């Protein structure tokens, strides 16, 4: 599903990723771990085709993202749902409207949008908050809205970039459990985090980065870094 082949990403003199290679199969749940500045977010942005690799190839569903034309990028991104650490929600729209936005972008019909948003808000436990604005929600609720928006269009891949970064352990667990639920439905989940408690709890595949280099890639991994 996602393949990195000897990927290096440089920003001027700074090397964010150096010779990283791995492959993620369809339906896998993968943690990408490492301390701040390890290259986790860069990796996520390379998959989203926000960045292009300086060297090597990033392939999603067999397509080398370097070969994507500008107008093909939206179609590529529609296959990926993203959960951001800073939520990236529209604060002048309600929870319902924020989630519906992902479906509108996909060009779905209004009736279908309404039904799907209701269903997904129920899944993430926000049915009662549908008409709330983001400022009226807690951090955990905001992250759940973000998660709902990421998965409502049923993308094949979910990328969660530090989704638990601002949350307490209990709320973080809730979010990861939701991601696992989605993964159980056959979706590929890639979660970048430096939350060792969550990683150790889930017992899933762990790709470990440090200073831009791939340190380890374990099928049932733990968080080893200090």
């Amino acid at each position, binding site marked *: 599903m996602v393949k990195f082949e000897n990927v290096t990403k440089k920003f001027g003199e700074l090397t964010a990723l150096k010779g990283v290679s791995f492959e993620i199969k369809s339906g896998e749940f993968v943690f990408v771990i490492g301390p701040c500045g390890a290259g986790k977010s860069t990796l996520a942005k390379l998959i*989203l085709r*926000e960045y292009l690799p300086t060297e090597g190839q990033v392939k999603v569903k067999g397509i080398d993202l370097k070969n994507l034309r500008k*107008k093909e990028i*939206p*179609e*590529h*991104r*529609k*296959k*990926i749902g*993203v959960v951001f650490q800073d939520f*990236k*929600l*529209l604060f002048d729209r309600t929870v319902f409207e924020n989630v519906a*936005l*992902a479906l*509108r*972008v*996909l060009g779905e019909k209004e009736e279908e949008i309404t039904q799907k948003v209701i269903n997904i808000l129920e899944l993430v436990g926000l049915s009662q908050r549908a008409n709330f604005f983001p400022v009226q929600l807690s951090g955990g609720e905001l992250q759940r809205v973000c998660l709902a*928006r990421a998965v409502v269009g049923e993308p094949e891949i979910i990328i969660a970039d530090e989704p638990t970064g601002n949350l307490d352990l209990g709320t973080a667990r809730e979010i990861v459990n939701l991601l696992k639920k989605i993964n159980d439905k056959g979706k590929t989940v890639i979660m970048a985090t430096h939350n060792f408690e969550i990683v150790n709890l889930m017992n899933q595949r762990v790709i470990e980065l440090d200073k831009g280099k791939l340190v380890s890639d374990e099928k049932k991994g733990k968080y080893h870094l200090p």
Partner: protein
Amino acid sequence: MKEHWRTAWTHMRRTPYQALAAILIMFLTFFITTVFILTAGGFQAILRYFETRPQVTAFLKDETTSSQVDTLKAKLAQTGKVKEAKYISKEEALNIYREQNKNDPLLLEMVTANILPASLEVATNDLAYLNEIAQTLRVEPAVEEVVFQEDVVKALQQWTLNIRMIGIALISIFGLVSLLVILVIIGMKITLRREEIDILQLLGASRWYIRAPFLLEGMFYGVVGAFMAWGISYLLLLYLTSYIIKFFQGIALLPVSPLFMLTVLGIEISSGIVIGSLGSLLAVKRYLK
């Protein structure tokens, strides 16, 4: 499309002063356009009126006989440059005089057919022949005096040309200003909504999906500005109709045909759409790479 309109409407509702500025500049552009179209059209009608009037009037001596008049008419017809030569007898001249001054009894007193000269009113096929025909008539023994409207027509032609030139220049300047204002306003809105646009791009929104509301917004300003300008110009014209008719008595200037006004509306709305969407498109190209 409905969704894009809704988004465009939300953009406008949230920045009403910018929307008002854009509509006002569009209004001003199209108001000037309508005023100049109507003025130029009016001058054209006045010019046409003078061009189609008998353009050379030859006043005949009192002793001129009808056979002399016929000879003169035949001579003029032979030139091939005359459309019509009409003989106005002393009695007919008196009737015309009476009709023109029917509201002023003082001017009607003392005037009889005898003191008015008979005349020959000659219309040429082209304005260029006017002088030549006037010269031909001047040397005729039966002709007392020749009057023709060459100067009036020339002055009107110059006025019409000047009005067109000034109109084109002003409309071009205001059109350009409108375009730039739309560009700046839409550019500001794009900058204000940068975060939203980034989120939409990450969600996989197509370029059209992101750009459409901005393009529709520009078009909306153009259409509303053009329609308001046309409506107010038309109302002003209707209000001023009685004054204009009084001032240009005898010249069929008004009422302006509704079909003509609808054509003007169609042209202005189309131009509004072009200016609005072009301004937005330039802004979108500049700020949404």
